[in-house]
Every structure is written in C-alpha cells, then in structure tokens.
C-alpha cells in the first residue's frame, strides 16, 4: 500500500510541475505581432538624470594602536574621507562614480563610463593599509636589501600598504564581445620575518616589503542564442625590489626573498545549450616562470646564475547538466589538471651552521596530475521536496612526494524541503574515503621523515559530515535561521601525524521587522575545531600526543529605525562580539599557553535631512580589541624563559579601545 501511495504522490507531483523548463527569455519571445518598433516610450524617463549621493565625513579617531584602523579605517587623530555613489544617465550613456571613504586608510574610488550594452571603460583606485603591530622592536633597521644594526633598539611599525590602480575596457557588438583589463599594485611596508645563521641562532626582523604586481587579462568572445565561445589571455608579472636580505656585518647568510616571476595563461571557453541540456567546457594552457639571479651566502652569484624554474600547466574542465524529465536534473563533470615542472635538475651545496656543508642535494620536480569525475542527480520527490545525491571521484598522481597516488571517493546527499509553509529545510550529508598507493618514506633518499609519518594531505582518510540548515518565517515580519554542522576527519592509518580532526558548531540568525519603522537583526554562533595529533622523534618508542582545541564564538545585534523619517531622521546601531581561542594540550599541559582574541565593535549612526537633498549625520564607532599569544617573547628575556639564540621583535599583542566620531554631510541628487 505504501508503494501505491508513494507512486501516486510521485505521479501527481511530477504532473503538477510538468512545465519544468519553459524559456521566458526575450530571445524566445513571439514578436511576430509586436509593434514595438513604433513604441515611443514617451514616459520612459526619470525625474533626474543625476542620481545618488556624495558627501564628506570629518571627525576624530582616538586610539593608541593603529591596528584599530584595520576596522575603523582611520588612525589616531584627524579623520576625513569622501563618499560618493553617483549615476548619470544621458541618452543611453551612463557614468558611475564611486568613492568609499577615499582618504582613509582603506579608501576606494572608481569611475565607469559607457554606452549601456555596448561599451564601457572603468578606472579604479584601491588603497589598503593593514596594521599588524606598532611596537616591533629590533636593533636591525632595513635599508634597501640590508638590515643595519643600530646602537639602540628601534621601535618599528609592521604595516603593509597596497595601492592598486586598474583599468578595464569592455566592448560588445551584436555577437562579438571583448575586454581588456590591466592592474598595477604596489605593495610596501614591513612584515615580521626571520633570519637564521643556519644553526641555533636566529633573529626575528621587521623585513622591508617593496614589490609590484601587474596583472593583465584580455578576451574576445562570439555568441549566439544558445552558445558562446571565448578565447582569453591572462598574464601576471611580479617584481620584487627586495629580492634578498642580509644582516649587515653579522656573518649570517644572505637570505633570498620572493623572486621576480611571471605567469601566462591562454584559455578557450565554450558553452552550448541544447533544449534542456547545457554543456560548458574550458581548456587552459599556462606557464609560470622565474629566472631571478641566485642569492648566495655572500650575496654574490657564482657559477650557475639562476634556477630558471618553469612550470607548465594544462587544465581542462567539462560540465553538462540536463533536465531529463520533470523534476529530475542530472549533472556530470570532468576536471583535469596537470602541473608539469620543467625546471632543470642540478646539485646544490647545502649549508650547515656557519659553513657550506659539502652536502649536495638535487632539486626535485614536483608534478601533479589530478582528475576529478563528478556525477549527481537532483530529483523533486513531491512539490516542495527535492533530494540530491552525488558521487565524486578524485584521482591524483604526484611525483617526488611520499605518496604517488591518492584516490578520493566522495558520496553526498541533500534533502531540501520547501513545501511546508514558511519553512526551508536542508539536510546534507557527506561521506568520503581517501586511499592510494604505498607511502615511500623508507625508499625516498631525500627524505629524513619517520617512516610511520602520514602527512595529512596525503594520508588515508575517512570523512563524515552532516549539516542541517533551517530557515523559518513564522510571521511575515520575522525570519529565523539555524545551521548546525558536524564534521569528522579520521586519518585511519596514521600513527604519526594528524590522527583525527573534528569541526562542529552552530549559527543562528534572526531578522525581525518589529514595527513598520523598526527592523532588528540578531545573529550568533559557536564553533569547535579539535585536532588530535601524535608524533615521535625516532620510532614509536617516544610517542607523544597533543590535542589542539580551537573555539570561536560571535554574536551580533543591530537595528534600524526610520520612524522619524518624516522629520528627516534615521537612526541605526550595530554591536558585535567575537572570541577566538586556541589551546594545545600535550600530556595534560597547555604547552603553547594562552592564545585568544576578543573584539567588541559598536556603530551608532543618526542622520537628519535638513532639506530633501541635504543630510547631516553623526556616526560613532567603538572598537575594543584584545589578543594574546603567550609564545611571543620580549626582546630581552631572562635565560631559561626563552630559547637560546633567539632574538625576537618583542611582544606584539594588542589591547586597546578605539573611538571614532565622524560628522557627515551628504548631498542627494
């Protein structure tokens, strides 16, 4: 009987949704009787051709740590920025201007001009500063590629600045389209890094950063009603002015930094639709090269000048999806990716303590070939209920690694229910199993690794994941969401390495139009990530185990009140809190000490419309941020409280309150 009922239900459901892929697109329209050529469209105009708003913000930032500027966008002192979001429509031409806190530490501006649907030119400028620490302390001060020892400790700022300019031109004719895009990014500043003598001495440094990256992309495409093809090119050039670093006069070996490099890719892409079946494919041939001069210990190139590294890539992707019958969609794809390292193999003398060791090592070519086959089906069980199942198989071959082949088999399913009034429920499950060839630690001459070690990205693994995502709208004015998830990665044959990892937690959200003029949003969640690992220095005789327990929680609440908008007043506020914790335990001890960050962020904003066009406002932002890392050490520490031979940059933790108050003046067009 159950069989009978379910079949009838199935039949009715599929009948009721029989028109499953009707094309309502204008290209399929029956225009035989249309007289649109005569349509005048006399009333197709806007009151204004210039639309949007532009304004300035002026105020003051109060913070003793520039780290606050990562969020609040201003450093201590006077704050001023320009905001704009303008559109100008004129006889089919359109100009868009955007300024987002231009003048702040994270400003952005763009202008786009063009004829709608035919061509456009867009130029943009993006400026970002990322403040990591104000108080890095070192006697080593960068001067070009050298770090010069100073008589006294120098307090240095670890901040990275990116300035990116970009321009893009697009042209579209009836069936032909093309584009060209170019960008240049200058990156400057200082970052935390380290230099070693190759032995037991090491100096943490504020390393200078001075590099440029230029990216270019261009393509031309041809298209018809149900097909498209594009030939495109993409190139990238990286130029590093700091290609080496040396601690001047220290006797430390000169260190190489990121070499100048470039990449080029040519891609052929295509799409074809045949009724309810859609095919898409892409083939990309590429190469990454660098021929930077070698940096040697004394900074002078000798013998072979450069490695002339080259990696060729070939990627091919094919996908097809088809609505084979009412309610049933099938999908299949093949993804192929090949990385072929063409770098010459040579012997290079390695370093041991303060001399070249006489021990020669050859560089290895790391090649990979990855093929992923994926099939899935999505079926509408009854109206408002859909089940999806899929299987992925990923085959990866590697050269010169500890495991030459891995195979991943992944099964997944999702049940989605939208048929119940005011509910959307999704239940997902995944099981995957990774195996492969034998590990080669014992036969790889270049590897000193423990033969019991199983590197987690190569190791056998069984993964299980489940996720429930529910959204419920009990009222027209109220929407609730819940997401709960659990994932387990079990490295089944690993005795040394990452043994098990769990990732579980929940997220909740609430969106409530409490009153006609008052909307409230609340969200929050908590996540636990537990990683169990084991290791041994020699064999399993001196095994040790450690558990790393990461936790993350956040909560936010905000409202927007427009009840006084008749009087020109709008008020909104947001508050968010987040905590990140990581503890690593070995033999019951929290071996790495406290590692935690907490943040509170408050934004309160009120606007008042003096006239219909002129709006003044007041914006207040507060940030309280604290982080800790017990593994950071003062520059000078008592013997026994830190490792011998290490010179640090000091304790770079943050603990600050920041207040930003801005007066805004906005003009609406």
């Amino acid at each position, binding site marked *: 009987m159950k069989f009978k009922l379910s079949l009838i239900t199935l039949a009715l459901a599929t009948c009721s949704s029989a028109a499953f892929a009707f094309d309502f697109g204008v290209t399929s329209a029956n225009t035989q009787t249309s007289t649109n050529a005569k349509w005048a469209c006399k*009333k197709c105009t806007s009151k204004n051709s210039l639309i949007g708003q532009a304004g300035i913000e002026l105020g003051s930032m109060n913070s003793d740590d520039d780290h606050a500027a990562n969020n609040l966008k201003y450093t201590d002192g006077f704050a001023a920025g320009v905001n704009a979001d303008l559109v100008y429509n004129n006889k*089919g031409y359109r100009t868009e201007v955007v300024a987002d806190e231009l003048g702040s530490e994270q400003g952005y501006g763009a202008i786009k001009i063009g004829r709608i649907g035919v061509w456009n030119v867009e130029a943009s400028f993006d400026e970002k500063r990322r403040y990591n620490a104000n108080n890095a302390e070192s006697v080593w001060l960068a001067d070009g590629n050298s770090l010069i020892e100073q008589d006294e400790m120098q307090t240095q700022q670890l901040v990275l600045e990116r300035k990116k300019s970009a321009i893009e031109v697009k042209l579209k004719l009836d069936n032909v389209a093309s584009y060209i895009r170019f960008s240049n990014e200058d990156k400057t500043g200082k970052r935390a890094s380290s230099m070693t003598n190759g032995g037991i001495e090491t100096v943490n440094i504020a390393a200078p950063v001075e590099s440029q990256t230029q990216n270019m992309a261009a393509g031309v495409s041809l298209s018809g009603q149900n097909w498209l093809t594009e030939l495109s090119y993409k190139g990238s050039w990286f130029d590093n002015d700091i290609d080496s670093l040396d601690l001047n006069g220290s006797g430390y070996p*000169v260190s190489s930094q990121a070499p100048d490099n470039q990449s080029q890719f040519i891609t052929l892409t295509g799409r074809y639709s045949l009724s309810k079946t859609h095919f898409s494919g892409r083939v990309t041939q590429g190469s990454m090269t660098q021929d930077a001069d070698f940096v040697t210990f004394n900074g002078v190139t000798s013998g072979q000048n450069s490695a002339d590294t080259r990696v060729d890539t070939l990627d091919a992707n094919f996908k097809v999806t088809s609505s084979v019958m009412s309610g049933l969609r099938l999908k299949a794809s093949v993804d192929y990716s090949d990385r072929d390292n063409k770098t010459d193999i040579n012997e290079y003398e390695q370093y041991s303590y303060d001399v070249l060791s006489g021990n020669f090592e050859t560089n290895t070519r790391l090649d990979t070939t990855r093929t992923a086959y994926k099939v899935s089906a999505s079926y509408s069980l009854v109206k408002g209920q859909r089940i999806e199942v899929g299987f992925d198989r990923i085959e990866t071959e590697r050269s010169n690694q500890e495991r030459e082949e891995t195979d991943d088999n992944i099964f997944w399913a999702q049940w989605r229910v939208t048929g119940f009034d005011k509910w959307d429920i999704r239940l997902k499950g995944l099981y995957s199993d990774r195996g492969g060839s034998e590990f080669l630690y014992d036969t790889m001459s270049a590897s000193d690794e423990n033969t019991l070690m199983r590197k987690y990205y190569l190791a056998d693994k069984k993964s299980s994941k489940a996720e429930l995502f529910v959204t419920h709208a009990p009222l027209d004015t109220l929407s609730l969401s819940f997401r709960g998830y659990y994932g387990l990665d079990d490295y089944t044959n690993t005795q040394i390495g990452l043994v098990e990892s769990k990732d579980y937690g929940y997220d909740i959200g609430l969106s409530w139009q409490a009153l006609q003029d008052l909307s409230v949003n609340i969200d929050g969640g908590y996540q636990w990530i537990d990683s169990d690992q084991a290791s041994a220095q020699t064999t399993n005789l001196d095994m040790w185990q450690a558990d790393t327990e990461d936790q993350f929680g956040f909560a936010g609440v905000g409202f927007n009140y427009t009840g006084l908008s008749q009087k020109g007043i709008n008020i909104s506020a947001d508050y968010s809190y987040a905590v990140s914790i990581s503890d690593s335990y070995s033999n019951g001890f929290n071996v790495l000490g406290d590692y935690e960050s907490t943040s509170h962020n408050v934004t309160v904003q009120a606007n008042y419309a003096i006239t219909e066009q002129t709006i003044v406002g007041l914006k207040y932002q507060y940030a309280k941020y604290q982080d800790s890392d017990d593994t950071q050490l003062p520059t000078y520490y008592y013997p026994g409280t830190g490792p011998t031979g290490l010179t640090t940059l000091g304790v770079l933790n943050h603990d600050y309150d920041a207040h930003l108050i801005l007066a805004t003046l906005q003009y609406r067009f």
Partner: protein
Amino acid sequence: MKIFNAMSVVLVLLSGVSTGAAADPLDTLMKKFEGGKYSKKGADTCIMCHKRSEKVMAIFESVHGQANSKSPMAGLQCEACHGPQGKHKGKNEPMVTFGEESPLTAEMLNSVCTACHNDTSRVAWHTSLHAEQDVTCVSCHQLHISKDPVLVKDRQVEVCSGCHISAKADMNKRSSHPLKWGDMTCSDCHNPHGSMSESALNEIDVNQTCYECHAEKRGPFLWEHAPVMENCANCHNAHGSVNQALLKTRVPMLCKQCHANDGHAGTAPGDNSSIQTGGQGCLNCHGQIHGSNHPSGKAFQF
C-alpha cells in the same frame, strides 16, 4: 493491486514526458508568452497604471531602463522581462513577476535574465551551485533601482552573507580577509554565477586565485614545499581562522602534523624555552616556508 501499481508507474512515466499540464497561473503565462500579444504602446501603456509606484518608476534610473541604449527598454520595454501584456490591462491577466509569490520556477525566472546576459562570466551558470539550489537572479540582484546593491563594493558582502552564514561568521575570526568592512568582496575570489573551477573560483584553481594578490608566493621556487605548491588550502582557511595568518592550526602544531623526522621536528611541543615555540615558532629558522630560491634553501631557511 498489481493493475493499480502498474497504472501508477505509467502515470509517473507519462508525467515525465509531459510538458503542458501545468496549472494556472503558470499555464496562463506560458500561453501568453507563446501567443506574443504585446501591448500597442509598450511601456507607456504600463505607466498609465503603474506610474504611482516609486519602485516601478525607479527602473528608469537603472541600466535596464534607458530607452536610448541596448537595454530592455530599447526593445520590448517592460514586456521584455514581464512578458506580453495580453489581457493584463482590464482583465488583470497575470504578468511574469519576480517576487517570492511568482508562479514561475527558478529556472524559468532565470531564463528571462540569461537570454540577454549570456557572456563568459556566466558560462557555467547552468551547472553552478546557485542554479542547482534554485537561486534566482533576483535573489541577489535588484533591477528597479538606480544601482544594484550587490554590485556596490561595500554592500555585496551583506547580500552574500544573507545565505552564506558560515562565511559571515568566519569574517569575525582572529584572522580573516577584510570582508567584514567591505575592503574586499566575495566576488574578488568567487564568481557567484558559477565557474568552471572548484568552489566557483574566478581563477583555474585555489592557488592561482591566491596569486592574484599574493604573487610573491607563486614562484616557481627552486625548492618547493609540496603542500604549498599543491594547494594553499592545505594550511590556510581563506575565510578566516582563530589562528594568525589564516592558518588552520597554530605553529608549531601545524608543522608537526606533517614533519616527524629523526631530528628536531618530531620532538614534543615545548613551552617558550623551545625555539620551535617562542617568537615565530618553526618560522624562526624556516622563514621561507612558501618556497626558497636560494641554492642552499632546501630546508626553507634562506
């Protein structure tokens, strides 16, 4: 009973090949569309009744509402997207609508947009996760507005994180890309219309996506670190982490998950008296962990 079951099976099979048995108002809309009875005056006809709606009239501020261009307003005007007028005027026959109450399926709604928006950035739309999950174009995009919020840099994240709540949570972690404050957008890395790459990435794979902004990691280095070369996501979580530098696990624990040689790497994690722990951990000595171009840099020290 057997006959009954057999009939049910036949019914199921028949339903699978049927294309016409749909209920009103969808059936009406399809017939109207096929009939092609467009209005006599185009948008001017629509505006006669709908001009009081600010939302309707806002289309003339948008890219879709510019009559002197290659926008819908230069062709079938309102009816380009909302279907032929038919007997809508007077008899209130339904038109194609795009809200939650629309009788059209997601695929049908999207067919309105993809008819014109057929370019390379949407080449994988039909095989995308969004299409698979019946996300409609108007789930993310607004048309009757001077500027679509999802195309505005500092408002896009709000749109995406409405559904991707785990990504929204990750933005609040100790280290994350600067998405929360609008300095980056989701579309800097992902193509929401789908792509031929994994996770709808803009570039051919994870690493090439990262190199767009982190070209110094590209190399190729003389001495490559295998997991780095293979996938940045082996060590980093791009959406955010409770650890510094988006690392999945803290240094030195992360390093020790792969390294247990006969020398120092296999030692039990110590407190700050260990050079593997204090300061920058393993990176105190192995500072070129993404790869080294130094002839003697096999161990990523120089």
